[in-house]
């Protein structure tokens, strides 16, 4: 991304800390859509989040864990 100004990169990085589908800055997004390099940068961040989500999905809680919890709290099912 050497050819881009520091300001633009800072703005893009700010965007990367937002919700990734949030249209924070129309001008920036317009640029990103026109610039393959920025588009790739953004896409790979989105993909990173997606891969981590896919590999860290919720697991069913074992029944004995809930039973132990209720027992500890002296609660009935």
């Amino acid at each position, binding site marked *: 991304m050497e050819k881009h100004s520091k300001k633009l990169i800072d703005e893009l990085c700010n965007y990367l*800390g937002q919700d990734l589908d949030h249209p924070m800055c129309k001008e920036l997004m317009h640029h990103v859509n026109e610039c393959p390099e920025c588009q790739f940068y953004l896409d790979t961040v989105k993909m990173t989040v997606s891969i981590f989500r896919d590999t860290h999905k919720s697991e069913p809680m074992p029944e004995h864990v809930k039973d132990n919890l209720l027992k500890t709290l002296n*609660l009935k099912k």
Partner: protein
Amino acid sequence: MDNSQVNKLVSEAKKGDQVAFTQLVEFFSERVYNLGLRILKNPDDAADVLQETFLAVYEKIDSFDGRSNFFTWLYRIATNFAFMKLRKDKRTVYTDQDMESQFDNPDQVQIHEWQDIPLQDMLNDEFRKRLDDAVDQLPEIYRSVFILRDLENMSIKETSKILDITESNVKIRLKRARLYLREQLAQYMSEFVKEN
């Protein structure tokens, strides 16, 4: 269960209604367990965090004033217990300063066209371990934001309330975590392309 139903159960539980408290436990325990699992990566530790969290909630529910959402309050307690356990086990050794150096030159790794890499071929145990290791390397302040926002799917506002930090701080930390993880992933993908 919507917010008003939760609030009603909380109100009844505060009066000592054990059935209402049991319903809260039944409704929220799996999410708290998974939060513990994502932070600690160990089912036994996640079960411990679950127990500690609900014991604390049981003892403190009288002091819950309803200014925040019950779920936010519950998650704050669970997150604190999980990270306390992590610190106690000395599994977090990376500091914010360590992280700074990672961002001096964020594009060190050559990034291949990710679309061309067959991700299904990569989704094996080794890949998952590399991803876990990458998250482990995040300092706590980044890891907590990444787990809550990106893995638990909390909003930026909810994340800020749970961690008691500003929304701006959530965004800054999230950006750093995401970029760091992207670099780690890019490194692994680069190795994968060379080997295949």
